[in-house]
């Protein structure tokens, strides 16, 4: 089953052969025929010339002789066209021959010839006629006729040779066409298979065609093209992978909207930011998905202005996240597509920090203002005459001293915190036996506890490992926590300091009280600066609101941690985890 190309080549060869043989046959055939006819004509003409040699009377008898020599039919006719002598037929049966074209020609030109179909002989004949003259007088005509059978035979032989050669050409051209087409189609077919595989997306390898002609060049070009194509695909894939990696691993949330303003792509950062609630937002408009007024306003602004927009918005219900959104067109895509990219940056923490800073300033101011106001008030009263009254003056001065003391403590605490935060506090870590430090701290707190009739006990096992700590800071931690415990425990309660070895090379120090406790949802806020559960009471008790905050910071510096458990009205337990030395 050869392809079409074979038939095309074969057909062409065949057509050329047929045409060539046809033309040769036709030209050569007619040439041969004309030559032969001419030759016969001349031959007959010379025989006819012989007749002139005989007198008319003798002609009759000589006709047979002439006919034999000339291998022709001989007819002699007189001036009127009457047949005088005839080799083949009875004279009487023959009609006038004067109108025969060869006779007419002979009469006019002196000799005549014609080739035609003879009805008498029933075959094609060649006729030659000459006038017979006796001196100047025309006495009649002699005509010789010979059949063209001889000529026909020669031509037939010639045609047979032609046909034979035609057959040979036919076979050889088929063979040549077959070979040639195979040589031509095999590489083309290979290339076709190759490109087909390429089209289906397979990696087809290299096209192996060794040929120096145009087909070889074509194959080379295809190979080069495939090579180039694969290089480009690889480059594109790498590029795509990079972009995808950036897209999915970016911490910022990214949304891409299609030309209809519907969400087309969401990255992982976005999910992380907005949470599980917005799982199925793909295919929705941002308005449908988030119902966020701020986002919609930002989008409207972007759409009406056509300029990139950057805005701060709130997203989500209950505990909304503050997001900084920037909206830009997606470049490099067909302009009609009109895709939009929304990049969200979570600024919740930043906002919170900002608010905390503002709160802190407000708190510090407030904390300082309160004792200052009191001090100024008493000083003014003293100035206005109270100083004269010794008793009152004494009372006032002690109040002033108390407030000044509080102010001093506040400033000291603030300094401590800011030193820790600035990293300017020097720690001197060493292996410390907890029991020693605890003893001295308990001794300090004991007085205060006794005033409130609070039982202060400690239970530190003998074999407790040494802990890695700064001795002074450790006692500050313990003082702050124990002070708090005593402060918030009503009269008759107990405060217990205990210690134990904890899992993971840690030592836990627990300070438990039977105090007023802390509401569960307030516990996480205890470490915040100036955070007080009960504001008025704490201040009455002389707290600065910074105690636990300092403890928290110091524990962090000790690579430890603090845990607070509390039951409202039942008491609080503070657990301090230190690293064992």
């Amino acid at each position, binding site marked *: 089953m050869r392809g079409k190309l074979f038939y095309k080549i074969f057909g062409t060869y065949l057509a050329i052969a047929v045409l060539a043989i046809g033309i040769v046959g036709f030209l050569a055939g007619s040439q041969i025929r004309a030559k032969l006819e001419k030759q016969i004509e001349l031959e007959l003409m010379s025989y006819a010339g012989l007749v002139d040699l005989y007198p008319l009377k003798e002609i009759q008898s000589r006709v047979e002789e002439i006919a034999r020599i000339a291998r022709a039919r001989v007819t002699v006719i007189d001036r009127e066209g009457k047949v005088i002598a005839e080799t083949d037929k009875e004279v009487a049966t023959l009609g006038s021959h004067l109108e025969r074209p060869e006779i007419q020609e002979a009469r006019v030109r002196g000799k005549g010839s014609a080739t035609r179909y003879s009805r008498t002989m029933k075959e094609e004949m060649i006729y030659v006629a000459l006038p017979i003259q006796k001196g100047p007088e025309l006495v009649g005509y002699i005509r010789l006729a010979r059949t063209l059978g001889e000529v026909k035979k020669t031509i037939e032989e010639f045609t047979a040779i032609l046909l034979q050669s035609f057959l040979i050409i036919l076979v050889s051209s088929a063979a040549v066409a077959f070979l040639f087409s195979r040589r031509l189609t095999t590489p083309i077919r290979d290339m076709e298979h190759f490109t087909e595989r390429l089209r289906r997306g397979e990696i087809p390898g290299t096209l192996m065609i060794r040929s120096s002609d145009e087909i070889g060049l074509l194959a080379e070009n295809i190979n080069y093209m495939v090579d180039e194509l694969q290089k480009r695909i690889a480059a594109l894939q790498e590029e795509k992978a990079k972009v995808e990696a950036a897209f999915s691993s970016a911490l910022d949330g990214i949304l891409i909207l299609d030309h*209809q*303003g519907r969400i087309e792509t969401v990255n992982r950062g976005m999910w992380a930011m907005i949470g599980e609630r917005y799982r199925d937002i793909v295919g929705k*408009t941002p*308005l*449908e998905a988030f*119902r*966020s*007024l701020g986002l*919609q306003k930002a989008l409207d602004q972007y759409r009406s202005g056509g300029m990139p927009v950057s805005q701060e918005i709130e997203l989500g219900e209950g505990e909304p996240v503050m997001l900084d959104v920037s909206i830009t067109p997606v470049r490099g895509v067909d302009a009609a597509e009109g895709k939009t990219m929304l990049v969200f940056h979570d600024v919740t923490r930043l906002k919170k920090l900002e608010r905390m800073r503002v709160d802190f300033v407000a708190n510090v101011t407030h904390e300082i203002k309160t004792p200052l106001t009191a001090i100024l008030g008493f000083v003014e009263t003293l100035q206005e005459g109270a100083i004269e009254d010794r008793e009152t003056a004494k009372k006032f001065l002690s109040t002033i001293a108390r407030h000044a003391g509080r102010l001093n403590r506040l400033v000291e605490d603030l300094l401590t915190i800011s030193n820790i935060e600035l990293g300017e506090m020097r720690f001197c870590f060493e292996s410390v036996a907890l029991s020693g430090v605890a003893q001295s701290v308990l001794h300090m707190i004991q007085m205060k506890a006794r005033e409130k009739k609070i039982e202060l006990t400690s239970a530190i096992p003998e074999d407790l490992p040494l802990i890695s700590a700064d001795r002074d800071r450790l006692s500050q931690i313990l003082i702050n926590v124990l002070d708090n415990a005593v402060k918030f425990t009503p009269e008759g309660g107990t405060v217990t300091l205990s210690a134990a070895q904890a899992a993971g090379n840690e030592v836990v120090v627990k300070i438990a009280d039977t105090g007023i406790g802390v509401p569960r949802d307030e516990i996480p806020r205890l470490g915040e600066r100036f955070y007080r559960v009960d504001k008025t009471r704490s201040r009455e008790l002389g707290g600065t609101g910074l105690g636990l905050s300092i403890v928290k910071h110091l524990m962090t510096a000790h690579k430890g941690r603090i845990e607070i458990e509390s039951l409202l009205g039942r008491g609080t337990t503070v657990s301090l985890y230190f690293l064992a030395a």
Partner: protein
Amino acid sequence: MDELKRTSSHYERELQDIKQNLLYSGVLTEKAIENVLASLLDRKSDVARRVIEGDAEIDKLDTEIEEQCIRLLALRQPIARDLRFITTAIKINGHLERIGDMAVNIAEKVLQLNEVPQLKPYIDLPRMAEIAREMIRGSLDAFVREECELANRIRRMDSAIDDLNEQIFRELLTFMLEDTRTVHRALLIMQVSKNLERIADHAKGIADMVVYMVTGINVRHQWPGDTPDDICSVKRDKSQ
């Protein structure tokens, strides 16, 4: 062919625009309710004033949506589903506009309430407001996604609001009976509560329209409890 495709996608776009605008209006009303309640709880009058000013935007959107709908009706002469969609949109638009006005009503009362000492801690009012907002959001979600089941669920939430309104009324009545000086404040609170209850009614109205849009059944004058649970599936089978 191309021309037809272009116009039909343009038409589709116009329907989408109406949807988006209604959603936007819904977000604005939701925000208004949220803000007006925040204004009451935090006793910050400027927030309430901003709600009153913000109503202009809802009104503007109301006019715009109505014009969009009427233009579409006149130019496209929609049939079947699209016609139901547009008539529903017109009605929902009206509901949303009324909700906006009620938020303004509440804001006016809040301004007065913020002038006088707080009568009692507000506990039920935020809950009512939360339910009302949820109903608005849910009914519009149902509208956009053409979800009959969700709409039907929203319709049933209305009774919770009615109960809360009733409860507030009884509670305030005891205040008024005990001390006549509280009457003025109690009446103001009652009006806030009443307006929230009305807002929920309008949200239910939106949900009713969504049920109608999807199924073709009018449930507007039906007590939500009387509506069969399978109203959505029954009609859908029949219409197919």
